C-alpha cells in the first residue's frame, strides 16, 4: 500500500489543532490535519436541527480585549495567526452572576465591578482580595517550568472566608478544571485572568465564526485537512514516532506528530512501545440542555449573560453521585451579550454529570432520563426568573456519552485528563500533546497551546 508522507501531522481539527496547523503551514511545513468527525471544532463545535443552529462547548469566549490592547493571550493569538481583531466580531458580555445561597456576586469585564461587589458583601476580605489580584497579575502562568500547586491552598492565604473562596473558584473550576475540588495554581491564574481580569464575549454567529476564520486561514496557506479520518494507531519504533495508521488501514508517515486527542487517548494508541504509567482519564463531564423559546430571557427577568448557580454552602466541583448534580449549574444566555444576533430566546443549562451512570443505561431509560433532566433544567430557569414559563419551542440535550461519541475524549471528560503534560512531551520522541492536556485552558488557551507547541516542536526544533 502506498503511503503519503508529511513533515508534521496534526491530530484533531479543534481549536488547538487548527491553530498549530496554521502556524506550520505559514512557514512552509508540509502539514496535514487529521479529523475523525466530518466537521471541525472538536470540543467547541456546532450542529443544526432544521433551520436552527447550535453551538457545542463555547458558552462565552474568555480573554476579552478591546482593539489595540497589548500583551494579552487574545492579541497573541491574533498576531500569531495573522487574524485581524475585527474578524472575530466580538460582542462583550453585559454582566454575569455567581449565585450562592447566602450571597451573590456579579462581575463584568471590568474587574473594579467585582472588587466593589466583594467589598460590599465581604468587607473584611477586600484587602486580601486586592492582594490576590496583584499576585495574579504578576504571576507567569504560562511558564512551562511551573510546578503543580494546589490553588485552594494558595488562595487561602489571601481569602480567609470560605464562602468567598468557593464563590471565586466556582466559575474558574467549572470552566476548566480537570481536577475535582481544586485546580493547579497556574491554571487558576489562567482562568482568573481570562474570566475576571480580561472578561467574556461572544463572537457574532457563535463558534462557527471562529472556526471558519481558522479554516479559511489554513486553506489560504495551502494546508491540507482530512475529515472522517479516524486515527487507529500511532506508529513508533525505537521510541520515535514514525507516523499514524487510520482506521481504514491507511498509513501516513511523519517524523513529528502533534496530537490534540488528549494525553491518555494519545498514549493508548501508541503501537510499538510499551507505555508505563498511563495517565488517568478525567472525571469531569457535563450534561447540557439547550432550549429555544418564543420569548427572550430578559422578558422573564433574566438579564445576566451567565449565571453560576450553587445551592449549597460550599461548591461541590466533583463527579456527582447520581446522574447529574441539580444543586449547581451554569446557565448561559446567548441573547444577553451586548449584541443579540438571535431571533429566538436561547437558554443553555449545564450540570456536572456522572459518565458511568449515563453510559450504563439502555436506550429507553437513557431517553427518559434525558427528558427528566430537561424538565429539571426548566424548573431551575423558573426558579431563577421567579416566573412560570411557556414550553420551549425547541429543546435538545446532550450528556457525557454524547461528548465521548463526538470528541473521543474518554468518559466525555471535556477538560481532559487530570494529568497534564505542560511541555507537551510524551515518552515517544516526536510525539507531542497539544490542547487541553497540555494544560492551557479555554478556547484562547487551546489556540495558544497549538501555537506554542507548533513553534517549539515544529518550527524552532530544526532551526537550531
Amino acid at each position: 500500500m502506498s503511503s503519503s508522507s508529511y513533515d508534521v501531522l496534526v491530530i484533531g481539527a479543534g481549536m488547538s489543532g487548527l491553530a498549530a496547523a496554521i502556524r506550520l503551514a505559514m512557514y512552509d511545513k508540509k502539514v496535514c490535519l487529521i479529523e475523525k468527525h466530518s466537521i471541525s471544532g472538536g470540543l467547541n463545535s456546532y450542529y443544526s436541527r432544521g433551520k436552527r443552529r447550535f453551538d457545542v462547548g463555547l458558552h462565552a469566549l474568555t480573554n476579552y480585549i478591546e482593539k489595540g490592547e497589548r500583551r494579552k493571550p487574545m492579541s497573541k493569538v491574533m498576531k500569531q495567526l495573522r487574524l485581524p481583531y475585527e474578524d472575530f466580531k466580538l460582542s462583550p458580555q453585559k454582566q454575569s452572576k455567581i449565585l450562592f445561597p447566602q450571597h451573590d456576586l456579579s462581575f463584568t469585564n471590568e474587574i473594579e465591578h467585582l472588587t466593589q461587589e466583594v467589598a460590599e458583601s465581604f468587607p473584611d476580605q477586600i484587602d486580601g482580595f486586592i492582594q490576590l489580584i496583584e499576585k495574579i497579575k504578576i504571576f507567569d502562568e504560562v511558564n512551562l517550568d511551573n510546578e503543580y500547586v494546589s490553588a485552594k491552598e494558595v488562595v487561602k492565604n489571601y481569602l480567609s472566608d470560605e464562602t468567598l473562596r468557593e464563590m471565586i473558584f466556582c466559575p474558574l473550576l467549572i470552566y476548566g478544571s480537570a481536577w475535582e475540588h481544586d485546580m493547579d495554581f497556574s491554571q487558576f491564574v489562567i482562568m482568573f485572568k481570562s474570566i475576571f481580569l480580561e472578561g467574556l464575549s461572544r463572537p457574532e454567529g457563535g463558534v462557527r465564526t471562529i472556526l471558519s476564520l481558522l479554516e479559511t486561514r489554513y486553506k489560504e496557506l495551502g494546508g491540507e485537512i482530512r475529515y472522517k479520518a479516524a486515527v487507529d494507531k500511532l506508529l513508533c519504533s525505537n521510541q520515535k514516532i514514525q507516523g499514524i495508521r487510520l482506521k481504514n488501514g491507511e498509513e501516513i508517515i511523519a517524523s513529528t506528530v502533534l496530537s490534540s486527542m488528549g494525553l491518555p487517548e494519545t498514549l493508548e494508541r501508541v503501537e510499538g512501545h510499551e507505555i508505563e504509567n498511563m495517565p488517568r482519564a478525567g472525571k469531569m463531564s457535563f450534561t447540557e440542555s439547550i432550549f429555544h423559546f418564543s420569548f427572550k430571557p430578559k422578558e422573564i427577568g433574566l438579564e445576566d449573560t451567565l449565571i453560576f448557580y450553587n445551592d449549597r454552602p460550599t461548591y461541590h466541583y466533583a463527579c456527582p453521585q447520581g446522574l447529574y448534580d441539580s444543586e449547581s449549574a451554569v446557565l448561559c444566555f446567548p441573547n444577553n451579550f451586548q449584541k443579540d444576533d438571535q431571533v429566538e430566546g436561547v437558554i443553555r443549562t449545564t450540570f456536572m454529570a456522572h459518565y458511568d451512570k449515563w453510559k450504563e443505561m439502555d436506550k429507553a431509560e437513557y431517553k427518559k432520563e434525558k427528558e427528566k433532566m430537561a424538565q429539571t433544567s426548566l424548573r431551575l430557569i423558573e426558579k431563577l426568573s421567579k416566573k412560570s414559563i411557556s414550553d420551549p419551542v425547541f429543546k435538545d440535550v446532550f450528556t457525557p456519552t454524547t461528548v465521548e461519541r463526538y470528541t473521543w475524549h474518554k468518559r466525555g471528560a471535556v477538560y481532559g485528563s487530570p494529568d497534564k503534560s505542560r511541555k507537551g512531551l510524551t515518552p515517544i520522541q516526536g510525539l507531542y500533546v497539544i490542547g487541553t492536556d497540555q494544560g492551557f485552558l479555554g478556547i484562547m488557551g487551546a489556540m495558544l497551546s497549538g501555537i506554542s507547541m507548533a513553534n517549539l516542536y515544529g518550527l524552532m526544533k530544526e532551526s537550531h
Partner: protein
Amino acid sequence: MEKTEVRQIVLDIIADIALDEDVTGIDDDKALRDQLDLDSMDFLDIVMELKKQHKIEVPQEDYPQLASMSSCVEYLKPKFEAVQ
C-alpha cells in the same frame, strides 16, 4: 545593499506580524519590544519571515541582535549582502 533597504525589509516584516501596530514612528535606537507589542513569539516570526522571504538564517544565539532597529540593520546587512 543600503542600510535603508534592510531597514525597510525589517519594517515590512514587523508591520505584517503586528497588524494593528503603527510602525511609522519607530525610534531606531530603542528596543523594539519597548515600543511595539512584540514578545518572544513575534521575534520568532521575524526570524521565520527572514528565512522564508529572504533565505536568511538567524541562529537562536543571535536573537539578541534583533533587539532594536539599528542593531537589526547592523546585524542583517552583511547577511543580506551574502545571499545576494
